[in-house]
C-alpha cells in the first residue's frame, strides 16, 4: 500500500514536470510557429499535391500510383510535426543542463524515473498533438475534396508508426543529451538520430508504394524494440549521479583517450610489474599471468555474452540446415568429386571472398570481426550477433544441401571447415561475444559508470582481440590457405 502511494506520488510529480514543460513549450514562438505551419498549412499543400498527382496519373492510365500516393502523404503529414520532438527533447534535457536549471530540479524529492518520464511526456505531447491535428486536417480536406476515407488498419499503422518514431527520437535525444553538456553539441550529435529515422521513413515510403502494408507492422515491431532499448538506456543514464558526476568528470577527447588507453594497457602493465629479473623472464611471467589469470577471469566475467553468442551461432547453424531442407539446390550443383588444386584457386562468387592466401584471409576475417565491434554500439549489440550468425548459417545451409545431395555432411565439414574452423570459429566467437558486450554497455552501462562502461567494454574487446583473436586468426588463415586445401584434395580430389 505504502509502495503504491509512493508510486502515485511520483506519478503526480512526473505529471507536474510534464505540464510545466509542455506549457513552457507552448509559450515559445520558435517552437510554436513551425509546428502550427506544419499542422495547418502543410496538410493543405499535401491535399493539393494528392489531388493534382491523382488527376495527373489517372490521365495516363496509372491510377494505382495515385492510390498509393495518398497513404504515403498521410504518413508524411504525420511525420513532419513529430520531427520537432527531437528538438524539444534536446532543449529539455541538454538545454536545461546548459542553462543550469537542472540542479534545483534534481534537489527536489522527485525520483530520477519520474523526472525522466515527465520530460519525455512533455517532449512528446506537442509534436504528437500537432501530428494528429495535421493528419486530421489532411484527411478532412481529402474527404471534402475527393471523398477519400483511409482504411482503419492503415490509419492505425500510420498513427502507431508516428508515435513510435517520436518516442525513438525523444529517447535517443535523452541518450545524446546525457553525453553532452551543451545544446550545440547535442544538436551536432542529433544527426545520429535524424539520419536513421529519415532512412526508415524512406523505407516505409517504399513499402507503401509497393503496397506491402503488412510490412508496416514489422517496422512498428522493430521500432518498439528500439524504443524499449533506448528508454532503458535513457533511464540508466538520466540519473542524478550520472548527470552531476559527468559534469564534474567531464573530459575532453584527450582525457577520454587517456582513460581508454589506461583501461586497455592497465592489465598489461600490471602483468609486466609482476615479473622480476631480466626482461625475458619478466615477459614470460607477464604472459603467464595474462593468459593464465587475466584472460580467463575476463571470460568468466563475460559468460553471459559468450553464452548468448554461442547460442546464436548454434541457432544459425540449425536455421541454415533447416532452410536448406526447404530450398534444395539444383542437382549437380554440389559436386565435389574430382576436385583439382586449380579448381580450389578459382575465385568464388562476385569477389566477396579473399584469395586463398594467408594474409588476405586473415585481413578479411579480422575486418569482419572489427566491423562487428564498430557496429555494436550503434545497433545495441545486434551487429556482432548477426555477423556471428551469418557464416555459421551458411555452413549449416551448405551442410544441409550436401546431405540433400546424398553426400555425407560430416565429411564435408571435416574437409572444408574443421581444419581451420577449430581455430577460426572460437576466435570469431570470442570477438563477437566481447563486441556484443560493447553494444550492451550502451544499453546498460552499470550504475555510475556512464561512458566508462562503454570504454571498459571496448578496452576488454581490444585486449581479447589482440592477445587471443589475432593469433588464432593468423594461425587459422595459414591453415585455411595451406592445410585445408590439401585435406579437401585428399578427401574429394581427382587422384
Amino acid at each position, binding site marked *: 500500500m505504502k509502495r503504491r502511494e509512493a508510486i502515485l506520488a511520483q506519478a503526480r*510529480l512526473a505529471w*507536474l*514536470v510534464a505540464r*510545466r514543460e509542455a506549457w*513552457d513549450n507552448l*509559450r*515559445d514562438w520558435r517552437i510554436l510557429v513551425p509546428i502550427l505551419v506544419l499542422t495547418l498549412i502543410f496538410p493543405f499543400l499535401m491535399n493539393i499535391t494528392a489531388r493534382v498527382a491523382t488527376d495527373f496519373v489517372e490521365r495516363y492510365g496509372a491510377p494505382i500510383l495515385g492510390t498509393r500516393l495518398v497513404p504515403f502523404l498521410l504518413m508524411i503529414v504525420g511525420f513532419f510535426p513529430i520531427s520537432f520532438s527531437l528538438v524539444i527533447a534536446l532543449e529539455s534535457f541538454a538545454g536545461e543542463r546548459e*542553462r*543550469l*536549471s*537542472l*540542479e*534545483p*530540479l*534534481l*534537489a*527536489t*524529492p*522527485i*525520483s530520477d524515473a519520474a523526472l525522466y518520464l515527465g520530460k519525455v511526456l512533455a517532449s512528446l505531447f506537442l509534436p504528437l498533438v500537432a501530428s494528429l491535428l495535421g493528419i486530421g486536417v489532411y484527411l478532412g480536406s481529402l474527404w471534402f475534396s475527393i471523398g477519400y476515407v483511409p482504411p482503419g488498419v492503415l490509419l492505425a499503422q500510420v498513427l502507431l508508426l508516428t508515435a513510435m518514431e517520436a518516442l525513438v527520437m525523444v529517447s535517443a535525444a535523452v541518450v545524446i543529451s546525457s553525453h553532452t553538456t551543451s545544446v550545440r553539441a547535442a544538436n551536432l550529435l542529433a544527426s545520429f538520430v535524424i539520419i536513421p529515422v529519415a532512412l526508415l521513413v524512406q523505407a516505409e515510403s517504399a513499402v507503401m508504394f509497393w503496397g506491402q502494408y503488412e510490412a508496416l507492422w514489422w517496422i512498428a515491431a522493430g521500432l518498439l524494440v528500439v524504443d524499449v532499448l533506448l528508454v532503458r538506456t535513457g533511464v540508466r543514464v538520466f540519473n*542524478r*549521479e550520472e548527470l*552531476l*558526476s559527468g559534469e*564534474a*568528470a567531464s*573530459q575532453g577527447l584527450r582525457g577520454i583517450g587517456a*582513460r581508454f588507453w*589506461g583501461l586497455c594497457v592497465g592489465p598489461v602493465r600490471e602483468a609486466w610489474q609482476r615479473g622480476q629479473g631480466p626482461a625475458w623472464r619478466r615477459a614470460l611471467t607477464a604472459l603467464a599471468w595474462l593468459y593464465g589469470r587475466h584472460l580467463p577471469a575476463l571470460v568468466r566475467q563475460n559468460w553471459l555474452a559468450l553464452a548468448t553468442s554461442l547460442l546464436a551461432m548454434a541457432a544459425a547453424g540449425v536455421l541454415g540446415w533447416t532452410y536448406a531442407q526447404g530450398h534444395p539446390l539444383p542437382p549437380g550443383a554440389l559436386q565435389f568429386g574430382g576436385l583439382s588444386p586449380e579448381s580450389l584457386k578459382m575465385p568464388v562468387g562476385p569477389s566477396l571472398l579473399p584469395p586463398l592466401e594467408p594474409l588476405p584471409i586473415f585481413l578479411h576475417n579480422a575486418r569482419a570481426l572489427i566491423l562487428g565491434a564498430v557496429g555494436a554500439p550503434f545497433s545495441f549489440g545486434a551487429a556482432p550477433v548477426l555477423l556471428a550468425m551469418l557464416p555459421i548459417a551458411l555452413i549449416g545451409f551448405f551442410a544441409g544441401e550436401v546431405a540433400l545431395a546424398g553426400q555425407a555432411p560430416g565429411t564435408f565439414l571435416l574437409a572444408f571447415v574443421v581444419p581451420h574452423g577449430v581455430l577460426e570459429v572460437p576466435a570469431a566467437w570470442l570477438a563477437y561475444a566481447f563486441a556484443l558486450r560493447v553494444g550492451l554497455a550502451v544499453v546498460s552501462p552499470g550504475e*555510475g559508470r556512464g561512458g*566508462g562502461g562503454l570504454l571498459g567494454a571496448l578496452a576488454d574487446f581490444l585486449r581479447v582481440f589482440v592477445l587471443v583473436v589475432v593469433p588464432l586468426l593468423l594461425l587459422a588463415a595459414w591453415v585455411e590457405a595451406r592445410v585445408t586445401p590439401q585435406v579437401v584434395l585428399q578427401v574429394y580430389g581427382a587422384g
Partner: protein
Amino acid sequence: MQAENGHAIVAQGVSKRFGGFQALRGLSFSLRRGEVLALLGPNGAGKTTMVRLIASLLKPSEGHIRVFGYDTVREAAEVRQRVGLLTEAPGLYARMRAEEYLAFFGRLYGMAPAQLAKEVPLWLTRLGLWEARHLRLGEYSKGMRQKLALVRALLHRAPLLLLDEPTSALDPAWTHQVHGIIRELRDQGHAVIVCTHNLAEAQALADRVLVLKGGQAVLEARVQDLRATSPRRRLMDLRLAQPVDGLGSLLAQWVEVESAGEDWARFWTEDPAQTNPPLLQRLTAQGIPVVTLSEVHRSLEEVYLEAMGQVEEARREET
C-alpha cells in the same frame, strides 16, 4: 533512520571520486540544529561536491552522511524533502513568472495550495520581488534572480539550508537583509551551511567554519576560537588619553607586555577576567586615564590564509 541527537548533519569518512579524480577524501564533520557552518576553501576544494552529497544529489564513494538521521543514499527522498538548496547559479526558467515558478517548486516539495498561497507572497514581499511578480523571469536583473533562487530554497521551510554564495550579485542593503533572514532562521532552529568566498560574510554569519583544501578538511573550529590570537592566551590592547613615560616598564610589573608606545600598549593574559580589573584599578590609582581596553582579534581572512598556507605569500604581495 537513526536517532539524530540534535544533529542536522553527521558526515563520517566521506570520500568522493569522479573517475580518476578524487574530489573529497575522508571528510568527517557534524552540524547541529540552530547552527550556521561556513564552508570555505579555494575553487575546486570540494565545497560544491560536499553540498551535493549532503543534498543527496551524489552518492559518496566511501563513508556515509546522515541528515536528521536519514541516510543520504538509502533515504534520499526523505533527505531532499528536508533540504533547501540554493545552487551556485540561480537556474531559473526564463519564460515563467515568479509566482508560478515558486508554485511549481513548492508543489514538487509537496506544499499544499493553501500553504503556497501564504508563503509565496510572504517571501516575495520580504525579498522585494512582489512588485516584479508579473514580469517573466528572463526580464529579471541578476540580483532579482539571486533573490528568487533564495526564495525557492527557503519556501518549503526546510530545516536544513544549503546556501551556495547566498549574497552574490546582491547590493550591500540586500546583503544585510539576507544576512538578517539567515540569522533569524538559525534562531528558529534551522541548520545552515553557507558556501562562500566572502570571508566577511562567513565571519558575520557563521558559528563555525570548515575549511577545505584538495578535498580534505584543513581547519574546523568555532569562529570565536579561530579569531583568538592564541589558543591559550589573549592579546589585549590598551589605549590611554595622554602619553605616559615608561608605560611598557610600568605594565611589565603586572603583565607580559607584547609591545608598547607612549599612549598605547599590548599585553598577553591567560585570563582577562582576572587580570584586567586590578590592572585598571592600579592605572586609575596612579592617575593614568584609560580610554579603552579590548581584546585583539584576528580577522577570518588572516585565519583562512594561514590555513591555506598562503599567509606569507599574501604578506609579501602586500609589501
